């Protein structure tokens, strides 16, 4: 985010507090994503409702993380969301089990990456001075 000048430290502090709150909730959000992915895998990505839950969680991450300074976390979530779109939109057929496996692997890789980097600079806020 842009530098807002020295006369708005109060504003910066409020934004930093929201960043901190977002980061504090990240482990819970990742846990929800992992649970949703596990449900999708149980049904081999054939249960529309389970896929929709996973898609919604990825979409939320894609839309929110960058606003709180975690741009890469959001960008990677967006990539997973787009990969999942191919299943939701029916672009993959039952025979495309390899493709479904690739999508699942994509999401799993993202979650492993996110878990490794929670607390790292990648997750750190750009509101910091």
């Amino acid at each position, binding site marked *: 985010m842009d530098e807002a000048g020295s006369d708005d430290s109060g504003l910066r502090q409020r934004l930093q507090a*929201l960043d901190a709150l977002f980061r504090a909730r990240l482990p819970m959000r990742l846990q929800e994503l992992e649970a949703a992915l596990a449900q999708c895998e149980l049904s081999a990505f054939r249960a529309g409702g389970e896929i929709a839950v996973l898609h919604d969680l990825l979409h939320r991450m894609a839309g*929110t993380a960058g606003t*709180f300074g975690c741009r890469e976390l959001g960008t990677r979530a967006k990539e997973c969301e787009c990969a999942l779109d191919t299943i939701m939109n029916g672009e993959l057929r039952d025979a495309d089990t390899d493709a479904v496996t690739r999508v699942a692997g994509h999401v799993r890789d993202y979650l492993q990456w996110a878990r490794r980097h929670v607390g790292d600079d990648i997750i750190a806020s750009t509101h910091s001075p």
Partner: protein
Amino acid sequence: MSGSLQNILYVEDDPDIRAVTRIALETVGGFTLRACSSGKDAIEAMHAGFPADIMLLDVMMPEMDGPTTLAHLRTLPQAERVPAIFMTAKVQAKEVAYYQSIGALGVIAKPFDPMQLPQQVRRLWSEGHG
């Protein structure tokens, strides 16, 4: 459309995004914000007489999504001509074209920079008046 931009009706189900948007639009932008957590809340706010100059709507929300919320709002005389902007991470060309086809003035992409958000809203609102 009214002649000035002061009152913003805002619909977003994510509490974190609602909080940062409130700071952006009220503290940074100086607007009066009515923040709603659902489409139903937004319809009730307009029905109760909130004098919105513009409406900002999230697209993907549970129960009632942004486009459905806008369609309901448009049935209210007080919201019939109020410009609407969607805030969404779904900003592919075909998606933006769809939002415009259902009457949106424009789209603000998520993620967004809170410090720039007021300017983005003002710019879209001005374009709507051009």
